[in-house]
């Protein structure tokens, strides 16, 4: 959970760590399409990541239960 929580913060950090001018140039290019791209990919990755993590935890619990029996 904690690792997943940190992902969006790392995205922010990574964006703000780029040299200001280079980052702005990229994000403003082609009618700010990259601003959209970062936001869309972040949302999709965050939600898919959340579901995958839930799935993994459930699988592990089911395995533990089977092992106990």
């Amino acid at each position, binding site marked *: 959970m904690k690792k997943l929580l940190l992902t969006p913060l790392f995205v922010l950090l990574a964006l703000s760590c780029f040299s200001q001018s280079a980052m702005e140039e990229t994000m403003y290019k082609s009618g700010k*399409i990259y601003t959209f791209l970062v936001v869309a990919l972040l949302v999709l990755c965050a939600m898919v990541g959340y579901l995958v993590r839930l799935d993994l935890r*459930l699988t592990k619990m089911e395995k533990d239960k089977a092992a106990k029996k």
Partner: protein
Amino acid sequence: MKKIRGIWYKSFAVILLLGSVIASFIVPLSPGVISVTPAKLTPGSNQVVVEGYNTHFDKGNNKTWIITESGFAVEAGYSTPINDHLMEISVILPNQVPSQTFDLAINNPNDGTFFLDGAFYADKVLVKEMAMDSVPQIPLLEENYFSFPFKNILYESIRNLNFHVTMWFALMFCMTVSVYYSIKQLGTSAAFFDITASESAKVGLWFAIIGIVTGSIWARFTWGSWWVNDSKLNGAAISTLVYLAYFILRNSLQDEEKRARISAVYNIFAFVMLIVFIQILPRMTDSLHPGNGGNPAFSQYDLDNNMRMVFYPAIAGWILIASWMISLRRRMTLLKNIEK
């Protein structure tokens, strides 16, 4: 396939989301004007270069006007395309005009009619009321393809509406489910309701975090700063903290029945705070977010009909995904409790 419970709504969610994501990526933006150089006009003939976006100037039949708010218009002497997005126009400005600010209107068969508000400033002119009888009429046409609206400053990032704003709709859904089960819990004190309430608040919190981070990125490249002093941003941050306190409260209580009761009461309080901070206060004060003093998401002025055709399915899709997440988390916690 029947192994997945509630397969119909889950597949519906995936279809809605796939559709809206694909549409958000492939629908083009309407044509628009980015800039004009020079923006200052003087009486007589002026040569101006117009920079458009997603335009088809080179396909010909361009007509250009400068217009004032009162409806006074002057047609450009010539409109010569340089390439698909650059065009040179010649504006003949009369000595007497009704206003010093002019909008630009461009029309061609491919792109329809589009405007740049406040494009020009007229210098050294006599401002005077004018008779409107010989003013040219500007035909209002739509572009001939499905597109998202062109807005200055936003440009392509208007597509973020389908990702950033839908997060907040999903959050409202999660928190409403959470408070509903909290109220039910107070009436019946069944552990099942308590678990559902806390799990949906957890899912809601995840949507809040993603909503804040995506909003921050969007703000940086449109408003110019990662965090602006906007009532909606601060309200969202405060309500996120209020819900974080809900989980701290839950974890600090050992006795299960007491925990369920106290956190249910706190959850009702937290929900009221959420409504106040992200729905009521931003509408009463100035906010950079659209929809001050109205309903931003459903207002007929802020949202274009083509946007809605993608935005509403996206909202429904994310809400269904949120309920899928809630049901997964609930089943997991119930399983954990049985094992204990």
